[in-house]
C-alpha cells in the first residue's frame, strides 16, 4: 500500500512543486500582503510596514470608486457575456448549417480575433470608433444616426468596450459550441423533422437542450474571464471618461502599480476572487438543479 503511494507522490511531485511555487506561495504572499499597508514608504524602508488586519478590506468597502469599479464590471459582465455567447452561438449555428460554404475558411476567419494582440487591435478599433473619421460612425451616418462619441462619452464608453471585447472573444466560444453542435446526432434531427418540427422548434426543443451543458461551461468560463476585464480599458480609455470604464482589475492595477499601495491592491484581488467564486458557485448550482430533473 505504501509503495504505490510513494511512487504516486514522486510522480506528482514535479507538478506539485510547480503549483506550490507558482500558485500557492504567491496566493499566500498576496493574502499576507493584503493584511499589511505595504506602500511606497515600506518599499523604501521595510521597518515602516504595518500589520493592519482587515483594515484594507474595510477601507475598500467604504471607497466609492471601488463600488463604481464593481458596478462597471458587473455592467460589462451582465451585457458582455450574453452578447458574446449569443454571437458565438449564432456564428456556430451558421457554420454548422447544411448550407454553409467554405466552412474551414470562415471558421479560421472568425477565430482570428482571438489570437490577435489586444494592443494592436485596440489601435485599429480606436480608428473604427473615432467620432469623426471612424467607420462605425460613418455607417451610422448612412442610416441617419448622429455621430456617437464612443470613447469620450461616459454613456457610450462601456458599450464600446463591450463591442470590442465581444468581437475579440466570441471566436473562442464559437469553436467550442461548434464542436458541441457537431456532436448532436443527425438522426435526432431526422426524427424531429419526421415528427413535423420546424427549424425554430428544432432549435428550442432539440439543439438548445443538447447544448445546455456546454453552454453552462462556456458561460462560467466567459463570466470569470469577463470579471477580469483589464486590457481593453487599459489600452482604449485608461479608465475614463469620468471613470466609466474602470473595472475592478483596472482599479487594482492603479492601486498597486500607479500608487504603489500593494496592500490595498492585494485586498482588491481577494475581493474579486470572492466575487468570481460566488458567481461561479451559484451558476454551478443553477446548472445542477434543472439537470437533475431532466
Amino acid at each position, binding site marked *: 500500500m505504501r509503495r504505490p503511494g510513494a511512487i504516486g507522490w514522486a510522480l506528482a511531485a514535479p507538478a506539485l512543486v510547480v503549483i506550490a511555487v507558482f500558485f500557492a506561495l504567491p496566493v499566500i504572499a*498576496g493574502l499576507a500582503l493584503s493584511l499589511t499597508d505595504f506602500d511606497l514608504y515600506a*518599499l523604501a524602508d521595510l521597518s515602516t*510596514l504595518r500589520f493592519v488586519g482587515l483594515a484594507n478590506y474595510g477601507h475598500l468597502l467604504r471607497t466609492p470608486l471601488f463600488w463604481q469599479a464593481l458596478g462597471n464590471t458587473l455592467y460589462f459582465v451582465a451585457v458582455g457575456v450574453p452578447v458574446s455567447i449569443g454571437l458565438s452561438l449564432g456564428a456556430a449555428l451558421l457554420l454548422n448549417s447544411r448550407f454553409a460554404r467554405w466552412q474551414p475558411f470562415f471558421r479560421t476567419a472568425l477565430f482570428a480575433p482571438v489570437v490577435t494582440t489586444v494592443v494592436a487591435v485596440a489601435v485599429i478599433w480606436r480608428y473604427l470608433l473615432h467620432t469623426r473619421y471612424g467607420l462605425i460612425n460613418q455607417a451610422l451616418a448612412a442610416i441617419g444616426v448622429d455621430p456617437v462619441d464612443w470613447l469620450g462619452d461616459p454613456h457610450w464608453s462601456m458599450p464600446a468596450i463591450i463591442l470590442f471585447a465581444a468581437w475579440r472573444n466570441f471566436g473562442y466560444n464559437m469553436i467550442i459550441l461548434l464542436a458541441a453542435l457537431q456532436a448532436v446526432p443527425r438522426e435526432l434531427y431526422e426524427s424531429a423533422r419526421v415528427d413535423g418540427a420546424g427549424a425554430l422548434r428544432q432549435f428550442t426543443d432539440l439543439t438548445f437542450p443538447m447544448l445546455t451543458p456546454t453552454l453552462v461551461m462556456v458561460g462560467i468560463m466567459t463570466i470569470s474571464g469577463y470579471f477580469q476585464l483589464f486590457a481593453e480599458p487599459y489600452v482604449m480609455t485608461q479608465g475614463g471618461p469620468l471613470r466609466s470604464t474602470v473595472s475592478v482589475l483596472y482599479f487594482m492595477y492603479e492601486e498597486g502599480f500607479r500608487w504603489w499601495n500593494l496592500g490595498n*491592491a492585494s485586498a482588491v484581488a481577494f475581493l474579486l476572487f470572492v466575487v468570481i467564486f460566488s458567481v461561479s458557485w451559484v451558476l454551478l448550482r443553477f446548472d445542477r438543479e434543472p439537470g437533475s430533473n431532466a
Partner: protein
Amino acid sequence: MPTRRRALRRLALGGVAAAGAVATCGCGHSDDPRGPLNFWAMGREAEVVTELLPAFYARHPGVQVRVQQLPWTAAHEKLLTAYAGGALPDLCQLGNTWLPKFTALDALEPLDALVAGSRIQREDYFAGILDTNVMATPQGERLFGLPWYVDTRLLFYRTDLLRAAGFGHPPQSWAEWLTAMRAIKQRADARGARGYGVLLPLNEPDPLFALALQQGELLAENGTRGAFAKPAFRRALDFYAGIFHEGLAPLMTNTQVSNVWDEFARGLFTFYVSGPWNIGEFRRHLPPSAQGDWATAPLPGPNGPGVSTAGGSSLVLFKGSPRKPAAWQLIEFLSEPATMQRFHALTGNLPPRRSAWRSAALANDAPSQAFAAQLERVRAAPKIPEWERIFQEMQLTAERVVQRTQSADAATQQLDAWTDALLEKRRWLRARGHVVGAGT
C-alpha cells in the same frame, strides 16, 4: 544597515513577485564604471536628445550614452518597478512632481555639491521651478534634480474678440477677468452665437490648481492633512465653479471638444488656460486668417497678476549609479544655456534658465514672453509622494461642485476627510520622527 535593509527589501519583494512587482530586465545595469551611460527619457524629448549628443561626445570622447525612450503613460510604473528590481538607469528625465516619490524612496543623488563645483549658477534658474527640486532630508534641504524644461499654465486668448467686447488689454485680476468674460458672453448672446468666456476642460485639474496656488496652502500641518475646506481653497473653488455656474464656460471635458483649435478659431471661447506646447500647436493648427488674432498673457490673480503652476521635467542622477561623474557631465552639458536653446529650437520646450531666454528665438517671440513673465511667478506643488493622487481627487471633487451634484461645503469636507485618510501614514511616520519626503 542599508545593505541589510536592502536584503530585507529584496526578500519582501520575493513575496511580492507574485504580484508582478519585480521587473528583472536584461538591459539592466552593469556595475562597470566605464560602461555606457543609461539615460531614460520620455516621449519626444528622448528622440530629440540624441540629436544633442554629438556635441557632448565631441567634448567627452570617452563617454557613451544609451538613450532609452519611455512612453509617458508607462514611465512612472516602469521607474518604480525598476527601483524595486534594482534596475534603475544612471540618469533620467523625471517629471518634477515625481521627485518627492523618488526622494521618499531615497533613490536620488543630492546635487548640491556637484552644482556648487560647476559653472552652473542656481540663481540663473527661475526660483519657483528650481524649488520643485529641493526636498527636505534629515540633513536639511537638498537639491535632487536640475530643471530641464518648464511647464506652466497661463491665458491663451483671442485678441479680436476681447477688443470687440471692449477691452484693449488682457485681464490682470480675477475681477477684470470676470468682467471681460461677462461682456464676451453678452456680446455672443446678443448676436445669437454660441460663445463662452473661457474653456476650462472639466477633466483638467491644472487651471483650478493654479487658481488655488494663488490663494495659499492646499495642505495643512506639514503636508499631513487636507486644507481644502479652509477659506483659501474655497475662494479658488468658488471662483472656478462660479465661472461655470454663470454660464461663462461650457461644461465640457477635453474629449468632448473634438478640436480645440477649430473651436478657438470659430470663437466658441475667448480665453483658454493652457501650457507652452500650445504655442506651437496654435501656429500649426489655426487657419492663417486667425494667426494674427491670438496672444498669450500671464494668469490673472485675485488682485493683479497671479502665480501659476511650476511644472516640467528635471534631470536626476540615481544614487545606485556606478557612473556618476560621467552622468553628471551629461546633466551639466544638457543644462548649458546653449544646449537648452538648441533643445528649445528642436522641441519648443521652454528653458528653465533665464540666460537661455536671451536667444532671439525666445526674446523676440511675443507668445513666449508671457511665459517668461509667468515663470517669475510660479509656485511648487506640495512635495509629497501622494500629491498626484490628491490632485486628481481635487478635480473630481471640483467637477461634482461644478455639475451641482454636491455643495461646495460638503464636497470640500469630503475631500479633506479623504486626504486625511490617505495621509495617515505620513502622520504616523512623523510621529515616529521620520523626516517625511526623504529617505531615512
